[in-house]
């Protein structure tokens, strides 16, 4: 009989387990998350594969642990983040029990790290499988809202230094995240989405409320850069007396970007905030050219290219397909890189963080040195300090530092205007710190820079005499650059992820830009060129996923509630039955058991 009762109980338990698994569970929340870039590079010569980023795609339903819950293990951990990375030696972190304890702390859970906590330890500790179920990196709201400007706008020199260090270190973290292969899934999420769930202000998080995270994602389809699209807008002038093309000036910019999470690649800082400037320049010069009295003696070709983060793949493809007649007429190529200037308050008497004019010398192509000095002198009038940087091109080095080098190699005179001194500066490569120019104070500077570039171009186009003592500005009043145009273009671009490998031929933002140029009256076309590379780099789609969060009970807490309910029953029984009767019953029960044994 007793065995039958026990088997019945066991059966009930299994049925309950089955029912529990079959019951639909309502999650607490469902939020968007963005996967770390997963790319794979295969060398066609050696056949060797270099895998980067995260290879796993889904986070199984697991409990979470925030950084602060395990941070106590990190008190004495040395990191290699403070070392000088320019030596290019990868010193291994000496094995340390505390590091192992820190990693073990997250075993079997989903580690939730605020982005800046990645500075406190070496993320590559988690690269091996089995260390944790997954990593969720919480991006501070300062990174992805217009408030980013507050982060980067420096108030005093001391703050500037520390923030520059942070930017540098974040760049190192991003490099490590992309270059290392992680066998655990890594996703990013905005702080605003999870601030009510995870507290990162206090060390003591609410442990009674544990959360179960689940991300269902596929590794995604393998894709490589199949094609790059270029957008050309042609503003012609009249043909010369012989019916040939007059000289041409090409103004180029790049619209693509890079991010360690392709689903978060809508930023506008890493060399692609010049799109708005280029569009505004085209509008201004179209207006001038529409008037026969102010029509210039140069053809203007405005070009927007992609693939700038893939060694300027788009520009290379485009230049190889341009009409030979146009190429022969090119007198100057003006490449617009990142053009924003950081400042709080423009004071005309004060020179502020300015621009850099890059050009190459040596070889058969020589730029007339008056061109860069002319730009420099005009920029001073606008209160902007421009430094001229020349660099010899090493023909054996395939790496393109700035876009003008591509044109230089095609024997065209070209300069690049950028606010980056060096090609390998952190933000320039594409970073989560990409600023959104939108309606931030930075947009005011874009208007100034647009005027500067327009004045510089007009000097060439209208062949204004160099020796004039007074500077005559053309772009004022009706021809003053319109900030709204630049802002609207930026706002439009901010809505779209623009990571090259994931771009199609008919991207909406490209069509919008094409329509914008057409509305100005320019002859516009979009051209897509197929790409085939010797070294194939594959990227994986599935860059975005849904995270479901369940609030779970800790087992211990549940057991405690169960024990308390038994205590409640016992107290109630004792109260109702009376003291003496209860004691008698207990004694009787114990005696019966002894007899049975």
């Amino acid at each position, binding site marked *: 009989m007793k065995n039958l009762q026990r088997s019945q109980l066991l059966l009930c338990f299994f049925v309950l387990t089955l*029912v529990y698994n079959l*019951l639909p569970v309502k999650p607490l929340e469902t939020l968007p998350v963005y996967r770390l870039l997963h790319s794979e590079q295969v060398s066609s010569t050696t056949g060797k594969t270099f895998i980067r980023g995260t290879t796993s795609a889904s986070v199984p339903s697991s409990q979470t642990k925030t950084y602060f819950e395990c941070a106590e293990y990190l008190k004495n951990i040395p990191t290699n983040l403070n070392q000088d990375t320019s030596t290019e030696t990868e010193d291994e972190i000496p094995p340390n029990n505390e590091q192992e304890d820190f990693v073990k702390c997250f075993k079997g859970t989903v580690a939730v790290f605020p982005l800046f906590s990645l500075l406190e330890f070496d993320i590559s500790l988690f690269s091996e499988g089995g260390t944790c179920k997954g990593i969720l990196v919480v991006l501070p709201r300062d990174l992805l809202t217009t408030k980013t400007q507050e982060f980067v706008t420096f108030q005093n020199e001391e703050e500037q230094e520390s923030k520059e260090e942070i930017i540098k270190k974040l760049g190192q973290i991003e490099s490590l995240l992309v270059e290392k292969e992680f066998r655990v899934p890594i996703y990013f999420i905005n702080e605003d989405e999870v601030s009510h769930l995870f507290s990162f202000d206090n060390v003591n998080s609410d442990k009674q409320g544990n959360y179960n995270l689940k991300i269902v994602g596929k590794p995604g389809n393998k894709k490589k850069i199949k094609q790059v699209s270029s957008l050309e807008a042609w503003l012609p002038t009249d043909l010369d007396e012989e019916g040939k093309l007059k000289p041409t000036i090409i103004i180029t910019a790049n619209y693509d970007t890079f991010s360690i999470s392709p689903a978060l690649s809508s930023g506008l800082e890493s060399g692609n905030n010049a799109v708005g400037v280029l569009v505004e320049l085209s509008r201004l010069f179209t207006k001038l050219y529409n008037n026969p009295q102010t029509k210039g003696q140069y053809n203007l070709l405005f070009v927007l290219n992609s693939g700038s983060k893939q060694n300027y793949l788009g520009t290379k493809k485009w230049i190889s397909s341009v009409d030979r007649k146009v190429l022969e007429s090119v007198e100057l190529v003006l490449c617009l890189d990142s053009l924003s200037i950081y400042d709080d308050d423009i004071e005309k008497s004060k020179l502020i963080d300015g621009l850099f004019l890059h050009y190459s010398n040596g070889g058969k192509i020589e730029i007339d040195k008056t061109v860069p000095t002319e730009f420099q002198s005009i920029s001073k009038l606008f209160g902007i300090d421009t430094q001229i940087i020349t660099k010899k091109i090493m023909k054996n080095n395939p790496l393109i530092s700035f876009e003008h080098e591509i044109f230089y190699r095609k024997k065209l005179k070209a300069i690049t205007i950028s606010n980056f001194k060096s090609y390998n500066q952190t933000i320039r490569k594409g970073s989560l710190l990409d600023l959104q120019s939108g309606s931030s104070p930075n947009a005011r500077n874009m208007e100034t820079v647009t005027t500067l570039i327009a004045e510089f171009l007009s000097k060439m186009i209208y062949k204004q005499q160099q020796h004039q003592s007074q500077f005559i500005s053309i772009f004022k009043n009706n021809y003053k650059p319109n900030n709204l145009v630049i802002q609207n273009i930026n706002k439009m671009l901010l809505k779209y992820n623009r990571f090259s490998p994931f771009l199609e031929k008919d991207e909406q933002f490209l069509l919008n830009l094409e329509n914008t140029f057409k509305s100005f009256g320019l002859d516009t076309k979009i051209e897509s060129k197929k790409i085939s590379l010797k070294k194939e780099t594959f990227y994986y789609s599935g860059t975005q996923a849904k995270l479901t969060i369940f609030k779970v009970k800790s*087992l211990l807490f549940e*057991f405690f509630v169960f024990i308390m*309910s038994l205590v409640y029953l016992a107290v109630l029984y004792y109260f*109702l039955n009376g003291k003496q009767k209860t004691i008698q019953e207990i004694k009787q029960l114990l005696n019966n058991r002894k007899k049975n044994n």
Partner: protein
Amino acid sequence: MSFFYLFAVLAVLFVVPFIYFRISTKTQSKKKTPILYGVVAYLLTTLSKMILMATFLPDSDQEEADFTAQFEPVSALITIVVSSLDVLGCFLALRACSGHTEVKIFGVSFAWSATETILSFFLVSWIGCLKPEFNWIYMQNALGSNINLLRQIAFTHIIWVLWKGKFQNPDKGNIFIWLSAFFITPELFKLSEVLLGKYFIFGWVLLVIKFAVAYQLYITSKKYFQSFEQLKNNKKKN
């Protein structure tokens, strides 16, 4: 996963009434008939109340679990009137069953309360307790059903006293007042939920208040019952 919370809630829901019934009617026999009649009486009474509520109660868009819902006096009045059917149901159950007084009273109360618990709370608790998300409301509902049992016992005592006393009890005025309290208090609790909800006071505080009220009702009805039994015994002796 674990079932500890589910077992805890089910234990509080069903074991407490069982303990109370077993202790109160330990020495007596013939316990099944009051339970049976109590279940049938509850089902029929609830069905009738539902039909009347559906006929006379105006439509409301508010959910029951919405603590911020506004209190509607008209609906509350209709609910109080319709709830008086419980008197009839309880009376018929007590009249139909046979046996000792205590067995009848506790049997009907236990059956009434247990049926209400099974129909109102069992399935909700089963599904809710097995969710990954923890919520105290299921334990609160379980403790609330214990308080309802106490209230039901007090109610059954009052009905018994009124019935057996054949309305000749000198305290009948007060008894009727206390009887009406049984119908008014649930609506008062709903009103207090709304009022307290505005100050974010839920759950446990309300439970304590409910227990205090139910306990008071129990003490008073027990007092009336004991005084009635004493009167009856004195008449027999005489």
